[in-house]
Structure formats: structure tokens, C-alpha cells
């Protein structure tokens, strides 16, 4: 069955014709055209497809698109503003938290959800919050450093420090 799905995507409301059996992952990538969200294991084990629904991380490969009616969905494309990377993106860039890059959008969205509820997370809190995300390059130490960098940069930003330009 095909229905009209109205939801908020990256801050903007939209209405799409969506079949009941389409996954949110496929809708975002194939119909909307936002390919930042990645298809990884395609079975709920790797976290590459992580997006935020109402601010909380969700595996879009196990979510039917029709179930996000009237909800807010955020993908990695929502983070950069006017061409400038968000702190969490810049953290992954500066700390080399991204190697092949395939897991990065999912890890960034899981990290973003963490930083919103805990702006100053400990290493343990970071490792816990990213437990559903697998980096097959195994660059976990750098990923934790990237999240810490973002937390500190955001704190400095809130304290009024000038934001440095990305290298």
C-alpha cells in the first residue's frame, strides 16, 4: 500500500508518496537522494545507517519509512551549516576518526545524539554510546578522541572562544 508520508527531515517538513514496505534507509537514499546515510550490514548489526528520530539514534535499515510519520528525522547532511563543518564532523576530520569513512556518518549521528544529552562525556560514556556502531577499520581510539575534541571545542565555543578554521 502506498500512502502520503509527512515528516520533518533535517528541519524541513516534507510529504512523500511511500509504500508501506519501504525502509527508512532506502527512502532517504533512493527517493530523497540523501546518500550520506550508509547501507552497511543491512541487518541491524553495524550502525552505518544510524539516523536520529526525534533526537534519538535509530537504525534506519530496520525502520519502516511509514512509521516516522509526523516525527523528526535528522541525517548527517543536517550538521554542516553554510558549508562549515559541525564540531563533531570537524573532530572526526582533525583527529583522523575517519579512515575508509563508511561507518563515519552513523558514528557521527550516534555521537551527535550523545553530545546533545551529555555535552561533556567521559571516555566510558563515549564507548557506551557508540556500542551499536562498528568501524571495520577498527579506528576506535581516534573516534573516541574525535568525540572528545568536539565536546571540548563546543565548550570553548560556548565560552566565547573564536572558532578556528578547519585545516
Amino acid at each position, binding site marked *: *500500500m502506498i500512502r502520503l508520508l509527512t515528516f520533518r527531515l533535517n528541519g524541513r517538513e516534507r510529504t512523500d508518496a511511500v*509504500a*508501506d*514496505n*519501504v*525502509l527508512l534507509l*532506502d527512502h532517504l537514499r*533512493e527517493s530523497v537522494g540523501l546518500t550520506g546515510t550508509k547501507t552497511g550490514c*543491512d*541487518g*541491524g*548489526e553495524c*550502525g552505518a545507517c*544510524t539516523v536520529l528520530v526525534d533526537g*534519538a*539514534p*535509530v*537504525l534506519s535499515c*530496520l*525502520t*519502516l519509512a*511509514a*512509521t516516522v*510519520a509526523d516525527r523528526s528525522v535528522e541525517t548527517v547532511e543536517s550538521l554542516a551549516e553554510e558549508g562549515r563543518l559541525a564540531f563533531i564532523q570537524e573532530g572526526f576530520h582533525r583527529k583522523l576518526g575517519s579512515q575508509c569513512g563508511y561507518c563515519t556518518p552513523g558514528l557521527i549521528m*550516534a555521537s551527535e545524539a550523545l553530545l546533545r544529552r551529555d555535552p561533556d562525556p567521559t571516555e566510558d560514556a563515549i564507548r*557506551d*554510546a*557508540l*556500542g*551499536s*556502531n*562498528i568501524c571495520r577499520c577498527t579506528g576506535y581510539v581516534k573516534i573516541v578522541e574525535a568525540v572528545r575534541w568536539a565536546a571540548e571545542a563546543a565548550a570553548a565555543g560556548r565560552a566565547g572562544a573564536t572558532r578556528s578554521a578547519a585545516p
Partner: protein
Amino acid sequence: MNVLPEWELLAPSSVDEVRAARAHHPGSRFLGGGTDLVVNLRRGIGDPPATLIDLNRVADLKGIEVAGEWIRIGAGVTIRELAQDPRVRASFPGLAAAAGSIAGPTHRNMGTVGGNLCLDTRCIYYNQSEWWRAANRYCLKYGGDICHVAPKSRICYATFSGDLAPALAVLDDAQIEIAGAQGARTLPLDSLYTGDGERYLALEPDELVVAVRARRPPALRTGYDKVRVRQSIDYPLAGVAAGVVREGDRLADLRLAFTGTNPRPLRLAGTEDLCGGALDDAVMERLSGLVRRQVMAMRTTFTSGHYRRHAAGVLARRLVRRLFDTT
């Protein structure tokens, strides 16, 4: 792009609407967080349903109530909500620990209490792609007529892996609230599971789990522990919940329940015979004997049944010791 079977998705907002939808659509499936069902649907496991009933907007399935010794948890409560609720952490630490140990953080944000209680049983011959299962001529659990784990068996040995059921089973009066076409009924938690991995739940086709409730006697110390291949995400190779009452230096009460080993959550029988004296090596040895006789791990995972049965015993002894020694 994934091609999934065609189905109609219904989104009722009350339990009464769910019952009506179920009555009109026999063979429909309930959709909670999707972390169990959608994985199986995508693998072609189970008959493709013509209708999915989305439970995520059903308000009467939400909410955790704690009153005195009692807890009542709506089936639609997410695992994350249960794990993080300060009342649950304070009064039902074993249950909170079990919830906090389920899968990974994103799964806990999606998965629900009802879904974990009704979690499909698992097996290496079942949780596979369609072509993999077809090449093995399927199995007793779905589509075939032989159990590859126990070829002479007439029942399916697929393993129950839910973490909440054992944590609830060591409490008192654990009961499931069920809504069906004929109205509401309650069922002891123990009776929800049949012990056959194929038809593992004693629910009628029209029935929905609405809530679970249980009671913790004030002196009962509870805890939970498990082993997994990947600590951050996997299903348990073996999991154990314990309830311990200590009076002075005496073990006054002991309850143990296991998951990840048998086709149902297993409440260990005979633990009352271990109570009444000190928690010494002899008691621990008898505890190991009970585990060896009752925990029936078969080769349903890539880890051997022998290892999982051994791990279940080690986990149980460690957890009982820790709870007994906690001051």
C-alpha cells in the same frame, strides 16, 4: 534498494484498536522496535504477513509504575527507558542491569519490553539468508522437517535469548498481562514459554502482551550477568539472573534463571535445597551440579553447547558470590 514483501501497515493508538485490527487481519504481525521482526522479514524468515500492526503509537502500552514492592512495565516501554529509570535502578537493579545489557545502545533505544519478552528463538540454522537455509533444506523451526542441531528430535532446539525474562523470573509473582479477542487475562511469566523453540510462546493468535508485572521482596538482592562474543552488541551465549537473600552469614533464599541456553528462559529448580547454611564451596559445587543437569545448551550458536553450559555455571557462581558478599 531492498525489495520486501508487500504488506499494509496499520498504526492503531489504543489497545482496543489493536485488538480490533488483529481480529480483522488474522496472520498479521505486531511491529515494535523492529530489531527482531524486521531483521527476520528481510531474511525471508517466517511467512510474509499481509498486515503489520505498528504498536509504537499505542499510548496504553507505555509507562513504568513502581508501587511498594511491585513493578508494572508496559510492553511498549523501550529497553533504554527501562534501563535508565531511576526507580528501576534503585529497587530492581537486576532488571535494570539486564535491560542495560541488551544488544547495543541504538537497539535499546528502538527495542521494547514486549519485544524482548517475545523475542524469537535463535539458531545458526535459522538466522540465515533464504539461500543459505534453502541449501540446507530448511529446518524444523521454519520451512523444513528436520532439526540440524538434533536430527532425531521432534522439537526445535532454537535458543531463547531474551534478557528480561530471567531477570523477572527471579522476582515473585511475575505475570504477563495479555489482551485478546475475548478480553484480558494474566498468565504467569513461566507459562508464557512452551519450551519448544518452534512454537515458543503460549499466546493465542489474537493475543497481545500488554504489560508485565512482578514483585521484589525487600530483602532480595538481584543481579544479572552474561557473556557474549562481541560485548557491545551480540545475543548472550549464556545469561544469568540471580536473587539472593542473606541473613547474617546464612544463605536464606536463592533463585537463578538462565537465558541463551535452552529454548525457553530456565528457572533453575532445586536451589531451595542449597539454602539454610553458609555459602561455602560445597554449596557452590552443588549449584554447579544443578546447572549441569538443567542447562541444556545445544549447538545453536557458533560457540559449542559445552562451553555455554560451562559459562552459565561460572557466571551463576560469580554472581551469587557477588550478591551474597555485597554489604
